[in-house]
């Protein structure tokens, strides 16, 4: 097909980089605040602040270059090409709007690591404050602000920490595509994350918000303008979740290379696939709830005010309808990573591939039907509690399948103990504790005692920190050589694993006991009898932070000081992403590959290589 010549060669010349984004964002904020004050609502300037954040974000995106395409369309000009990787060389490409999924993956990686540093420092502050049983180190108000900032920042991070860097970078490589389905949406899903983090951090200037990550009204309605940071920041994360989900799903459905049948799809891609379905369907509900909260705070409607015909149960239902799938948004890609990495180092085919996929889908489907287990003691619909107790406990069946598949793969294997494999083992141990403690919380009689206590706090830290972050570390040691072209030091990696594993368990296991012994979550003062355990936990938490610093040190050491170039396939893995050269060429594959075998066919006599990289005549792979 001949591309027709455009009538007009005019282009919108907004430069597309982060600097102009910031330059645009600052006046955007003040314009929004000014517009908000024009409404003259009796709302403590909440309208102004919210509009300021929204305008600042839109102006930032305009400065980064997102509005070029719609405006060029609207003016009838020639539209920008969808991909131009050749223009995206050099370090500057990381600060520009890039439509290359590899650049976006690395942008995500660095952004998330910086956010993780801040979230982690927040955790250290919280633990420091809990060294004493009263509020003498940190005043009560500042303490709950810290709780809010740490929790929301960590939720932002953990929603994107695997899908963002690794999903974006690896999914096209794993399915044999040359690009993503919707590169602009993909870039958007990244470029809203930095504004979300900055807006969240801006809450400190208003004194912080008091609600934690759940944002329960009416408390969130009496909170100061800091709450607006929560609303806008979380809404941006919802946008990121939906856009990323649409892009990922369309890519996986539509851009698989010839021969990449559904039964040859790597497990990591299945993890991304299921998590994207969750993000696609759950995040809009959060967006609607946040919109209601915004209206309540600005135009004085009463969605959540009992005295004016609303109900706080409405928020609790909508929020947890999003919130529970959200925690599986965290963990499904981690399951994918574990089932992806273990076969490569066990040097065995994945044991029960189809069962594993069924397990992922089972978790995904069931997670939509369990949200009321967060509300067992809220007094909402007590007659439904048996149903939600059952559905919650049923989730342990598909989760058990993940364990079965992994253990089956390890059975009589020839395990190559690399650092990623160590982290996979750590994941299995931690997530087992997290999962078993989840059963305690799903049983209504015991949940009465455990709900809202440090037990549940320890439970979800075991699943998220011990589960997702350990999987993240496995993924980092496994795939960063491909992504950055540099090997990470395995010696530091081993020290890192053992340090982190011991410090993690030493930090969070005592918290189960603390919770059983009458300590609620999010309190700045607690029973002095628990001071010993809390001090133990705090000191362990410092060590845990130290292990993360060691990881950062390993990154800096290995990238800048040793800079040992990574081989194209240092793990001798079969799967497709390791068959491309390192660094990955701009268009991934010289030609669209023809996939002829599964990614885990180790030990099978006369197994064919996974793909014919010579290319397929007539296939496009996304052009």
């Amino acid at each position, binding site marked *: 097909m001949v591309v027709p010549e455009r009538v007009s060669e005019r282009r919108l010349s907004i430069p597309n980089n982060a600097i102009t984004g910031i330059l645009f964002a600052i006046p955007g904020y003040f314009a929004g605040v000014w517009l908000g004050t024009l409404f003259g609502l009796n709302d403590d300037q909440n309208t102004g602040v919210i509009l300021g954040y929204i305008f600042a974000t839109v102006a930032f995106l305009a400065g980064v270059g997102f509005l070029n395409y719609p405006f060029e369309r609207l003016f009838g000009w020639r539209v920008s090409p969808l991909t131009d990787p050749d223009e995206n060389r050099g370090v500057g490409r990381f600060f520009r709007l890039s439509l290359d999924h590899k650049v976006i993956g690395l942008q995500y990686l660095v952004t998330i690591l910086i956010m993780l540093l801040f979230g982690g420092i927040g955790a250290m502050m919280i633990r420091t404050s809990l060294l004493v049983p009263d509020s003498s180190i940190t005043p009560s108000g500042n303490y709950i602000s810290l709780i809010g900032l740490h929790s929301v920042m960590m939720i932002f991070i953990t929603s994107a920490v695997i899908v963002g860097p690794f999903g974006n970078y690896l999914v096209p490589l794993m399915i044999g595509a040359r690009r993503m389905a919707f590169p602009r949406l993909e870039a958007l899903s990244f470029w809203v994350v930095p504004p979300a983090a900055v807006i969240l951090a801006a809450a400190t200037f208003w004194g912080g918000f008091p609600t934690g990550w759940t944002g329960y009204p009416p408390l969130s309605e009496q909170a100061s303008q800091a709450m607006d940071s929560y609303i806008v920041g979380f809404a941006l994360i919802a946008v990121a979740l939906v856009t990323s989900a649409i892009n990922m799903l369309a890519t996986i459905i539509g851009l698989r290379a010839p021969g990449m049948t559904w039964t040859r799809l790597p497990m990591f891609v299945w993890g991304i696939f299921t998590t994207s379905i969750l993000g696609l369907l759950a995040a809009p509900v959060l967006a609607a709830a946040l919109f209601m909260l915004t209206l309540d705070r600005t135009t004085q409607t009463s969605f959540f005010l009992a005295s004016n015909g609303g109900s706080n149960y409405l928020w609790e239902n909508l929020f947890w309808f999003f919130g529970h799938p959200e925690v599986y948004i965290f963990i499904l890609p981690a399951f994918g990573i574990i089932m992806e990495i273990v076969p490569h180092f066990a040097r*065995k085919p994945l044991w*029960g591939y189809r069962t594993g996929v069924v397990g992922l889908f089972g978790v995904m489907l069931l997670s939509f039907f369990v949200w009321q287990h967060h509300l067992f003691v*809220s007094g*909402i619909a007590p007659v439904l509690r048996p149903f939600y*107790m059952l559905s919650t406990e049923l989730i342990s*069946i598909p989760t058990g399948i993940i364990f079965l598949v992994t253990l089956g793969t390890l059975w009589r294997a020839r395990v190559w103990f690399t650092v990623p494999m160590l982290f996979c083992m750590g994941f299995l141990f931690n997530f087992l504790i997290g999962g078993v403690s989840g*059963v305690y919380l799903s049983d209504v009689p015991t949940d009465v005692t455990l709900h809202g206590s440090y037990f549940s706090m320890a439970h979800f830290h075991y699943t998220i920190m011990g589960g997702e972050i350990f999987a993240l570390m496995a993924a980092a040691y496994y795939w960063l050589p491909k992504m950055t072209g540099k090997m990470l030091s395995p010696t530091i990696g081993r020290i890192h694993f053992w340090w982190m594993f011991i410090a993690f368990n030493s930090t969070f296991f005592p918290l189960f006991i603390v919770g059983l012994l*009458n300590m609620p979550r999010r309190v700045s003062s607690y029973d002095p009898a628990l001071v010993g355990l809390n001090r133990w936990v705090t000191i362990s938490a410092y060590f845990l932070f130290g292990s993360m610093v060691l990881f950062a040190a390993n990154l800096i050491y290995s990238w800048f000081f040793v800079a040992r170039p990574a081989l194209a396939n240092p793990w001798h893995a079969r799967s497709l992403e390791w068959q491309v050269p390192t660094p990955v060429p701009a268009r991934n594959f010289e030609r669209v590959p023809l996939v002829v075998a599964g990614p885990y066919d180790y030990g099978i006599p006369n197994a064919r290589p996974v793909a014919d990289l010579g290319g397929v005549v007539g296939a496009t792979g996304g052009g």
Partner: protein
Amino acid sequence: MGVFRIEEADRPHLLRLLIIWVVLSIVGILAALQIHYPPYDQSVQGLDQSRTLALLTVLATPVFIGVVIMVLYSAIYFRRTTTELVDGPPMLGNTPVQIAWIAISAVLVLFLAVFGIVTLASSNVAQAVGTPGRSIGQSGGQTGSGTIGGTGPELQVQVVAQQWYFTYRYADYGGVETTHLYLPVDRPVELHVTSLDIIHSFWAYQLGVKADANPGVDNIFHVTAQKTGSFQVRCAELCGLWHGHMADSEGQVVSQSEFDTWIAQQQKDYEVISKAVPSYAPFYFPEPLLKAG
């Protein structure tokens, strides 16, 4: 074993694992039974919760030990010993094993769910059987209907949460409001938990009671204390500035005669202010709750 064909190569591993698992599980279960599980036995409901916790731990121990020894065993016995890379045996799956695993976990889960539902439904732990705010829409406002109260077998106590304190109203004693919670021993109590402003959660730890206090909602919770002594009350839902300090350790379970003396003293002490307090209602929508401005 029919469908479960055990390959020759698997046999020593399985035997060893089985022995380790059985021994460690017995030790683990015995250890788990030594623990005193909160919230102990001050109330009938608390005792049921302790027992459920014990049961869950006893069931979880063999599962936990089973998976952990599988992981450790693999790490020790199935690690590569040669320097060169060797592939393992190409096992693609084993349908009977998978079915058995799913069936066992399903049986465990269903047993737990049924047990939980039975415990929940049994009269001892009939927590919050009332629908939330069962009178919502019928008696708004501070006047209230006053129909709750009376002299049933159950003592009715309303827990009124506010930022940042719990107060208690005794419906059967003229709606007198107090700052501490006293309960008679061995008498069923119906707690009506409500809030004046935002969401709190009433957590009487030793009694095994936790119920959210929502504005405009009457959250009902049943408890029967069976031992005298003091108990602690805490707020278990983030409620703003003084959430961490919303605690009271002066709750008391006392004998019926002591309780009668105490409540008479309260009625006398608070006689004046009781006139200003609105008549007893399942929940309140106080005027200042309406939005300012």
